[in-house]
């Protein structure tokens, strides 16, 4: 079993921002806090400079990483498909690249059932990537269930933010 170490910087967009002006979101508090990095860090060999890295370029759709879901739903809504497909294309063109798709849920209900629900959400992202030719060997689907909420208030304003899958590249 390979160990995939993910780092802290998770560049993503706020809910509802898809298709609008791209803006950086602060480092997601739910991610690993042990490592610190500010854009430039260890990269897989052969990658280009930070400025030219499409995964980090805020003007590139590949810098978008999050898919949001309706309550108790796990289908990838149309508005997120271009972004997911762009990542799939990147994977097919960069066979050494690997991603984890991390599923998340809001806090309501059973923790274990939410692990399963988060998995289903992330798995729906994998399936969209598969259709575009990305190989399962490049994708690991995992779930944080309700354990790593990005926002912690107890109403829909937070819950919708936490019903989410994140695409995280190995080495990030």
């Amino acid at each position, binding site marked *: *079993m390979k*160990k*995939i*170490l*993910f780092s802290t910087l998770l560049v993503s967009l706020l809910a509802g921002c898809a298709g609008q002006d791209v803006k950086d979101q602060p480092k997601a508090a739910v991610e*690993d*806090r*042990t490592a610190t990095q500010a854009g430039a860090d260890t990269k897989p060999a052969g990658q280009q400079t930070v400025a030219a890295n499409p995964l980090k370029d805020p003007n590139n759709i590949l810098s978008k990483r999050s898919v949001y879901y309706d309550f108790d739903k796990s289908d990838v809504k149309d508005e997120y498909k271009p972004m997911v497909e762009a990542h799939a294309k990147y994977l097919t063109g960069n066979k050494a690249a690997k991603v*984890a798709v991390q599923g998340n849920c809001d806090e*309501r*209900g*059973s*923790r*274990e*059932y939410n*692990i*399963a*629900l988060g*998995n*289903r959400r992330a*798995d729906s992202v994998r399936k969209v990537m598969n259709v575009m030719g990305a190989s399962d060997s490049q994708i*690991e*689907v*995992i*779930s*944080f*269930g309700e*354990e*790593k909420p990005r926002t912690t208030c*107890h109403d829909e304003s937070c819950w919708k933010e936490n019903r989410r899958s994140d695409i995280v590249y190995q080495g990030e």
Partner: protein
Amino acid sequence: MILRKLLIGAAWLLLAPFAHAALTIEIVGSGANQIPISVVPFAGESALPQGITAVIAADLQRSGLFKIVDAAGVKPEPHELAEVNYPDWRTRGADALAIGSVLSRPDGKLEVRFRLLDAVKQAQLDAYSYVIDRTLVRATAHKIADLIYEKLTGDVGVFSTRIAYIVKSGPRYELQVADADGYGAQTVLASKEPIISPSWSPDGTKLAYVSFERKKPIIYVQSLVSGQRQVLAQFKGNNSAPAWSPDGKQLAIVLTKEGSSQIYLINADGSGVKRVSYSSGIDTEPSFSPDGTSIIFTSDRGGSPQIYRMSVSGSGAQRLTFEGNYNVSPHFSPDGKSFTFIQRVSGSSFHVALQDLASGQMQLLTDTRMDESPSFAPNGKMLLYATEIGGRGILAAVSSDGRVKQRLSTQAGDVREPEWGPLLKNQ
């Protein structure tokens, strides 16, 4: 309705350097028929750093099945059979009486003598004597409470058992084990990443749990004796929801290595993984029947999460719950005749439910609103679960008839994911 608050545990903070907070137990409600009993302070008890009879009385009272009759003012306090004046105790309303003594022996050990008396029939029901190490005073008090409970109710006492749960304080997660009364909490694992789903091995010596310390859910098994642990399952995807088989040789676990969440069996040493459930939906939260022949679990194969039962080989899955559109987290009762689970009653209201397997009859047991993770005490009389009061995670317990309710909370942090441990063989 009795509302009684027992503040306990100031002392053990000094004894357990890794634990942060005592559990406070609050009892709400009482049994239909309470047995009035007086627990007379034992001779020589006042010389001990901690009492015995106060622990016995608190145990009995917490069960909701006993009413403690005050022994204050009885002169002289009886410690031996010959000193008991039964009519006195009948006047005070006591049907039963516990008396005894504690002697310091020359070898440094303690001798604890105890008698249980029937004040109505004016007869001795039981008598025991223990020679114990001084560190075992509380454990002995729990043993005596178990004996009293068993003799007077006919059911096995669970005062000597332990519970496991997770405490989250800020960014820190701790897997803790404590006595059933909340004393002696010890941290068996601390992590900056979430820990969920602790599950006791049937012999009470090990815990299986799910830790996110490697950035995804992986199942570990940890010895409570040596503190050593090993990875049980770290397959591609998620590894979660461990549940021990009654013989302790296998666990049912949930893996996603073939896509959706499905139930597998795995040997306790991590070998021989074998898929047992086959659905296109989610199958999770397995719980073995006490005879080891079947597994109940949560599945959404019918469109909403419901409780199903299948044979341990995975055949003959049958849906068990039909009321409501969200039924999750099943646990078998120790006698195998019923199961507990969580039912969502309205949008955001989750309650502990109990269903009889033969009749299919279902009962909601709690009036708390955010209930999770119910499990039975090993005598089947109480259920331990997690809930939320004032935005904080606490543990609560409810009797299987719904009448007796307890809340266990810490001074700080969220407490969650409890599981009541087994009866230990050497007791």
